């Protein structure tokens, strides 16, 4: 008798009807949006605060560099010693004191600029000062050497390399960014999915053990069926939750943006990247066009098919391990030692994805790890937007499916024995012994 649909239905319905699940489903996007809005609000607040910077310029060279703005007020001090200036800037509650000493030549001046402050200033603030002062002093130096600044400015040429693959596909920097975003999003999604719903499966197995209903159930169904039903049912509940999060989250995001008049999306990387480029003088229309062609350039079909296959196999591989762990122990506190070895490859995969795929999506490290079954789902998903040869995808997938089948068989063995074992926490040695039972 095939009870799988019945088990899946029960697992799905109990998860979805569960109070904490409903609360989490509704509350998570609310909390996330509230958090983003809060951070956006705070950074605005930070910008609103007026920062006073005292300047004691004894060289007289950089008087016109600093012009007060709404958020920064430059308090130019004159006719006093450094010690007096320090006291005054402390009394006026300044962010710090910029001190430029007097020397004859500009180069020496540039080497003796100091910034005094109560607390160490932010790195961006200092580099901002360095850029401003550097520019000014360079100009002064140029003028001193009788070089025409205008001529230099007009002679500057900016280069924009157009990239094209041998087969004629045009690519651009925007392209790579989009690929990166897609890859990272897919890999990270899988990672999150495994952790959240793998744990949920594990808890539900433990619950069946502690409530002692398990023996009644497996006198009616095969343990493997129960395990698979649990995994599939919980995953469906997970997908439901994810879809609700995306729809609800998107909706909330729009509403909050409209109400607060803040574009929350600005805080995200790709947009920021684009804004930066725009400010650097790339015109928007060109950017939009290249954005569009980049999307069209993505191997969409490959992406979708590979995403589904790698996601499903990778998820099933890990969730069957979670189910086996749940069966092996009596309570959640005992799970730690068994969770560790499955968390290691998972976290490794994400880091390899982030660090090496960005650097070189077809390098040795990322290629090798996109073949190793425990890391391949995450790493391969991150690599695919950059175009991975079909044979590599197929080999990796076959390896993954082989491992996945072995893992399900292995987990089912552990599960079958484990669900009827109570009392002591088993050791790894005992787990291996269970396979022979």
């Amino acid at each position, binding site marked *: 008798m095939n009870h799988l649909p019945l088990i899946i239905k029960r697992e799905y319905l109990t998860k979805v009807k*569960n109070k904490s699940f409903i609360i989490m489903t509704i509350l998570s996007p609310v909390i996330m949006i509230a958090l983003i809005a809060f951070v956006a609000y705070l950074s605005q607040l930070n910008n609103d605060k007026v920062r006073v910077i005292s300047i004691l310029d004894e060289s007289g060279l950089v008087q016109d560099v600093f012009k007060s703005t709404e958020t920064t007020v430059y308090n130019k001090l004159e006719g006093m010693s450094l010690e007096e200036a320090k006291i005054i800037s402390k009394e006026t509650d300044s962010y710090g004191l910029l001190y430029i000493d007097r020397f004859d030549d500009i180069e020496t001046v540039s080497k003796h600029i100091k910034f005094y402050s109560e607390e160490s200033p932010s790195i961006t603030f200092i580099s901002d000062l360095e850029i401003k002062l550097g520019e000014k002093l360079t100009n002064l130096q140029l003028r001193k050497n009788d070089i025409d600044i205008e001529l230099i400015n007009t002679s500057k040429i900016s280069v924009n390399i157009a990239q094209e693959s041998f087969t004629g596909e045009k690519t651009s920097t925007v392209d790579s960014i989009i690929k990166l975003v897609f890859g990272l999003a897919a890999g990270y999604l899988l990672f999150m999915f495994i952790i959240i719903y793998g744990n949920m499966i594990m808890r539900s197995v433990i619950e069946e053990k502690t409530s002692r*209903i398990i*023996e*009644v159930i497996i006198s*009616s169904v095969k343990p493997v069926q129960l395990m698979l039903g649990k995994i599939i049912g919980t995953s469906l509940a997970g997908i439901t939750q994810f879809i609700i999060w995306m729809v609800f989250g998107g909706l909330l995001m729009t509403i909050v943006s409209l109400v607060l008049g803040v574009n929350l999306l600005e805080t995200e990387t790709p947009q920021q990247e684009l804004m930066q480029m725009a400010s650097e003088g790339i015109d928007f229309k060109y950017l939009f066009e290249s954005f569009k062609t980049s999307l069209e350039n993505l191997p969409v079909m490959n992406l979708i098919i590979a995403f589904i296959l790698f996601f499903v196999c990778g998820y099933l591989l890990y969730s069957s391990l979670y189910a086996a762990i749940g069966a092996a122990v009596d309570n959640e506190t005992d799970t730690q030692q068994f969770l560790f070895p499955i968390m290691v490859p998972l976290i490794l995969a994400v880091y390899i994805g982030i660090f090496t795929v960005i650097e070189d999506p077809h390098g040795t490290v990322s290629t090798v790890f996109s073949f190793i079954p425990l890391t391949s789902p995450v790493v391969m998903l991150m690599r695919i937007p950059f175009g991975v040869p079909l044979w590599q995808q197929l080999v990796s997938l076959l390896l993954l499916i082989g491992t996945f089948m072995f893992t399900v068989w292995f987990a089912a063995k552990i599960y079958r024995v484990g669900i009827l074992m109570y009392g002591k926490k088993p050791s790894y040695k005992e787990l291996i012994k269970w396979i022979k039972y």
Partner: protein
Amino acid sequence: MSNLLEVKEVSKNFGDFKALNKVSITVPKGSIFGLLGPNGAGKTTLIRVINQITMPDYGKVHLDGELLNPIHIKDIGYLPEERGLYKSMKVGEQALYLAQLKGLSKAEARTRLKYWFERLEIGDWWNKKIQELSKGMAQKIQFVVTVLHQPKLLIFDEPFSGFDPINANLIKDEILRLREEGATVIFSTHRMESVEELCDDIALIHKSNKILDGKLIDVKRQYKINTYEVGIRTNNKESLEQELANKFETSIANFKTLEDELKLNIKLSETDTPNDLLNYLTSKGELSHFVELIPSVNDIFIQTVKNN
């Protein structure tokens, strides 16, 4: 009468541990079969083999003449000793789910559940969650779920634990009624008085081996000790006691009487008959008590386990 269940030389090892060693039992159709044994003897493993939860390493199990296979899941109802229900699920939903797992259709399961819930007067529990019920209440639900699909074979492991005397009696009557309706019952318990009361056949498992089985009455005959408990009124207790002690193997007995009688257990030698003893005793005084001591299941249990 044919046998419903035949277990033939079943062995099961867990690693180096032998849980069952060539155990065979036969359960006649329509009987109540007592499966006895000390803790850790292998009873639960045997029950799990019958339920196809555990596969035996060697040996065969036949149910109603057929080799045990997954189709038989619907023919067996099992109430494990370690039992429970989903705590946060509603009673009705849960019972429907478990019944469907045993192969009943949803509609059929609902009709039968309504009948049983009314019968046990628990109809208003349908929408309650298990965690709102007491242990005894949950046990009742479990009992209903076990018998709902009208299996040929019912296996109860300590069915009365957790019940108060009134409910334990109620469940006992239900078990007897189910037997009347044609079910066969395997009954595993440590309560020997229920075994005396209910079982037709017993098997005793000790240290993975079956060490005793048969009809309860035959087992008792086999363990007959030829001893009689007697009470006799006499003026001279000491001298009579002495006289009897010389003639038979005696010991002091303990039972309630109205007068101050001499109370003894008297064991007959193989050549003596009860009638000889009776005649002898009536000549010595006024006999008020004469009962053959039948070994209790409890005695048989302890004696057999100790001897092995």
